[in-house]
């Protein structure tokens, strides 16, 4: 066994401890604040709202910075260290800015059995990035994810526009060609609909910061359409379904 490394020595550890600044204090939009107030009535403690508050924050700001942690800590009445612990425990909160569209390819068993590794290589090549990376234009980030509970669509990809409400969609079963076509389609759709307003800035700017909800859904993110069927990649019929 290796002796313990410090974050300065070990890039993996540094990544695990990551916490970055947005450059100034942040605040929720009026809609976000209203949603939060409603949430406080749904739980017997304020602490229980930490994760829901982080979801609102991620939608509004795109990622979780030191300032967001301070904000949530104040609103939920828990220590910033507690919020940080929560943020780092769960896999879905971004601790650095990510691309506008978050691609998560499942690399767990059922997807691997049906070619996830090949799809991964095609996506890396098509996007020109590695796992964990973001394209130079800031449009796509690529990560791997554990079983998405969509194994009948294997290999399956989850597509999420982080700054918009309720748009996560599953695309599968994918092969290399379908994955490349999907990226082209997503790029066309993204160029046709403007990105959400940038979120970073001092509190005084909050009026023109993130409009939050309810934004238009990105059009036709999966071939099933908005909130549509969670199946059917481009040009491919779903082989799954309940029987």
């Amino acid at each position, binding site marked *: 066994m290796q002796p313990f490394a410090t974050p300065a020595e070990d890039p*993996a550890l540094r990544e695990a401890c990551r916490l970055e600044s947005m450059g100034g204090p942040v605040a929720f939009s009026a809609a976000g604040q209203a949603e939060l107030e409603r949430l406080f009535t*749904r*739980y*017997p*403690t304020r*602490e*229980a*709202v*930490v*994760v*829901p508050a*982080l*979801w609102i924050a991620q939608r509004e700001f795109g990622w979780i910075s030191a300032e967001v942690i301070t904000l949530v800590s104040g609103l*939920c009445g*828990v220590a910033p260290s*507690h919020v940080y*612990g*929560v943020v780092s*425990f*769960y*896999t*879905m*909160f971004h601790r650095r800015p990510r691309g506008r569209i978050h691609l*998560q390819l499942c*690399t*767990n*068993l*059922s997807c*691997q*059995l*049906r070619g996830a*590794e090949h799809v*991964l*290589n095609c996506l890396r090549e098509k996007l020109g990035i590695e*796992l964990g990376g973001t394209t130079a234009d800031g449009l796509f980030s690529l990560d791997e*994810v*554990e*079983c*998405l*509970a*969509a*194994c*009948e669509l*294997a290999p399956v990809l*989850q597509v*999420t526009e982080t700054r918009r409400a*309720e*748009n*996560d*969609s*599953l695309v599968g079963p994918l092969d290399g060609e379908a994955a490349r076509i999907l990226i082209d389609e997503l790029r066309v759709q993204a160029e046709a609909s403007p990105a959400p307003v940038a979120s970073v800035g001092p509190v005084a700017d909050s009026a023109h910061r993130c409009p939050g909800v309810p934004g238009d859904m990105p059009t036709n993110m999966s071939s099933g359409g908005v*909130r*549509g069927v*969670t199946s059917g990649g481009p040009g491919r019929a779903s*082989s*799954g*379904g*309940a*029987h």
Partner: protein
Amino acid sequence: MEVKLLTRNFDRPESWTLDAYEKAGGYRAWKTAFALEPEALIQLVKDSGLRGRGGAGFPTGLKWSFVPKESSSPKYLCVNADESEPGTFKDRYLLEKDPHAVIEGILICCWAVGIHHAYIYVRGEFGLPLFRLRDAVREAYAKGYLGHDVDGHGFDLEVTVHRGGGAYICGEETGLIESLEGKKGQPRIKPPFPAVKGAFGGPTVVNNVETITTLPWIVEHGAAEYRKFGTEKSPGTKLFSVSGHVVRPGVYEIPLGLPCKELVYDLCGGISGGRTMKANIPGGSSVPVLTGAEAEAVNLDYESLAAAGTMLGSGGMIVLDDETCMVWTLAVLEKFYAHESCGQCTPCREGTGWLRDLVYRLEAGGGKSCDLETILSITRNMMGTTICVLADAAAMPAASFVQKFRGEFEAHVGAGHCPMRRRPAHFLTAAH
């Protein structure tokens, strides 16, 4: 043979809407339940023989009866919609296609146990299932099926949909409760069991989505009708989600006790590409693996699978064909458990990492023959030594893979590379 109790509404147009659900006779069972005394309702569920569908198979009515009738702190129901066990995707179908049946099941459970607030804990990655569920809860409130004085019966019930942050361990019932309370989802030592002290300090029922969704059918048709499906000790139907190398992967509702052969070869259309079944993981990635021959001989019910040395688990069946490398397969699985260990218990935190590293090395061709004994020894030290059973869930596949496919592991050591000539997977070459 398929039957359609839980999946009865799946093919109806817009089955997820209140309108469609009511037209199909929905929210009637709940009125029947309400006419019963809570004790009689619990007895009905006990009589039906319904067992928890989340993995452990604990009798549902019995679990409810552990909750004290009078309690100074509020009681809660947590519906477990964290569905993260690799190979399992049945709850996603229930939430997407019949969310009102989930809500009606919640009403029945809460009336039986005297609960006035239910949380539905939905895994963070779920998109459509979450949106449909939220819409359904909104519709149910608007129609007066939820909230104050439900349907004029003098019973109050709040339902809150809670979205997780992404962590397999939050499917474990006490991890779920910690997570719901706004903390890291690290499981608690039991006792106290949730039925006595759970969410926010109150007595808490934790039930899987499928368990809850079965309730309306049982109430409407009665325990005896339910028992007409399945076997004596494993009554009723079960959703199996089948994936991997089968022609038609998907969700199938079958009576418990159906021969595994029938599910794989008839319903799922057999093994893709005309190949043969080398192995079968019948109940989600955490259960011991069966060889193809063992799987062909087994029936799908709790007792038969236990007798075959495995478990029914969540009903997430993963089928592996004869071209699959078992060392590579185990490497994929152990990567998952090492990633998901919450880190509280030394045998689990260290053991999952060691298992992963040893299997990686074997698959990459650098393994030694003593590694197999080391793997088995690690698994023995992980089982039964930790706060929750994630450690066992990581150890059981490892032990069963090495025991049943030992020749393949030895061949890797002998050859110094993977004899199945699999291209190295990205995670084997990447630094970890």
